[in-house]
């Protein structure tokens, strides 16, 4: 009786509506942000016509250039560093007989994900302040890169480890049987097979570094403004739609990398 034709037994009353509502809630504010970035009016809240003037203004804005340059230097360095470190650690911790210390390695690598960001931020600030005062070390923008490296490693590590675990050992076995040295086998066999995981990990590391606000804000010294910090500075001034334009650019770059990472993961599933 209940299983009448056309009735999906698995559906629950109202769930469809709630799912749509959630989607609207998640996207509506972003959509508004983007729409008002092409607003010709000087006032953020009044829409008076389509114009790209705020993008042009951002394009010629010296402060925006500096912030973009700093952000790219930090994000690219942190991505390269964390992806290499994460790949090496993933090779050491997967597909081998469990070894003493393996759990400790997992714990250390995942630790940055468990500590609330604000605690990491003030701790890193204290650390670099102490380093600067007692030993005179100050790496400038390198301080921010080192801070980012720490939380980028676990994000890069996760997809690389997942890929390694799902990989087949036979090809490497064949390489070893054909007298390839471990390094050669790794370079010519493992690494190419691992590439989807590495690119996915690198994309995630780039996103989390590129978007970071809390830790960067506390660690950054004068003149080390990144794009999120620049947006924060703009919020506190009288606002123009330029802030929407810059926010939209940031959002666009994050979404691009999310799509790359997602696409790689989908292809992996299909292949």
């Amino acid at each position: 009786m209940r299983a009448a034709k056309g009735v999906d037994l698995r559906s629950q009353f109202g769930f469809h509506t709630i799912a749509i509502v959630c989607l609207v809630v998640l996207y509506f504010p972003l959509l508004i942000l983007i729409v008002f970035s092409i607003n010709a009016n000087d006032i953020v809240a009044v829409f008076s016509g389509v114009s790209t003037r705020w993008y042009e203004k951002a394009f010629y804005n010296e402060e925006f250039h500096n912030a973009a340059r700093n952000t790219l230097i930090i994000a690219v360095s942190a991505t390269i560093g964390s992806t290499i470190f994460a790949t090496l650690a993933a090779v050491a911790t997967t597909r081998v007989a469990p070894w003493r210390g393996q759990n400790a390695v997992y714990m250390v690598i995942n630790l940055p994900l468990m500590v609330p960001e604000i605690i990491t931020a003030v701790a890193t600030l204290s650390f670099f302040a102490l380093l600067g005062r007692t030993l005179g070390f100050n790496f400038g923008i390198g301080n921010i890169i080192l801070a980012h490296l720490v939380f980028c490693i676990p994000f890069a590590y996760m997809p690389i480890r997942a890929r390694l675990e799902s990989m087949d050992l036979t090809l490497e076995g064949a390489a070893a049987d054909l007298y390839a040295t471990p390094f050669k086998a790794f370079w010519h066999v493992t690494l190419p097979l691992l590439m989807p995981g590495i690119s996915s990990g690198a994309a995630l590391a780039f996103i989390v570094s590129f978007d970071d606000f809390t830790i960067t804000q506390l660690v950054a010294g004068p003149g080390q403004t990144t794009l999120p910090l620049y947006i924060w500075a703009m919020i506190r001034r009288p606002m123009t739609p330029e802030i929407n334009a810059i926010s939209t650019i940031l959002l666009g770059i994050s979404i691009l990398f999310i799509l790359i990472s997602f696409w790689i993961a989908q292809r992996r599933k299909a292949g």
Partner: protein
Amino acid sequence: MTTTELAAPDPGPAAPGPTPSTTLSAAQAASASREDKARISRWLLSAPALVTITIFGILPLIIIVIYSFLKAAPYGGVVWSPSIEAYVSFLFQQDIFTEELVFSPDFLQIYLRSFIFAVGTTLLCLVLGFPTAYFMATRPPRQRNWWVLLITIPFWSNLLVRTLAIMFIIRDEGLLNNILIGLKIIDQPITILYTDFAIVLGLFYSFLPFMVLPLYASLEKLDFRLVEAGYDLYASRPKVLFRIIIPLSKPGIIAGCLLVFIPALGAYVTPLILGGGRHMMIGDLIAQQFGSGRNWPLGAAQALILMSAVLVALFFYVRATTGKVKHGQG
């Protein structure tokens, strides 16, 4: 490769047989030295990641533990003399005239507020996130992928920009008020920004994807034959939901709640932008001690008190998930 596999103890057969180590053969010595080499290379490969996280991630945490037991320097930083002043001033304030310590619940109130906000956000996310995740899990596979992508995008998108987007809508001169005034429902803008409601709304908006994705991962693996069996036994839809689906997706619910609760409790960006500095949460309280407050030991102590709250939450998580293994669900 094959030799190490052979050398590994075989757990299969019950018969012990003759012990292989009757003579320490050359082959075994070679395999032992290979084991040593493998061990060294494992540590060497892990070293860059471990050293980086230890020096720049763990050492800073140790430093704030030490800082919390020091005295504050007048312009930020610390004076190296041991003191529990930071922890005392978390609960007590010195009376200006009598210099007596008077109990002051100011900080405690902010912690309590943050806790209530985090619990409220978690419940809100669960109530709306569970139906969403369930709906996603019951779509055909192709549609599912699209839904996952649509939830993944806000999951990874810039938190600052997303919070800003909320701010644009709920400001006094924002979209919501403009529409309401335009429709002549109200003549004065309603103040939403810089209220507690704005913070909880922002937290909900920020962390909703953190609830949906783990819930979906758990519901996707749900065995729907059990749901059918429930209907065959004349259970109503709500009964199937509460007696079958929800209990089976408990690991996902716990993971989702934790992923929302922990960042919500320590939220910094949301109260900063939507609370306007007046409606504080733990996150901006801590940051304030390291900024304008210039009391680093107090900030360090506050951070450690937050950290212990997070550890308690993680402890319950571990207990709940290992309990799951024990009962053989999953």
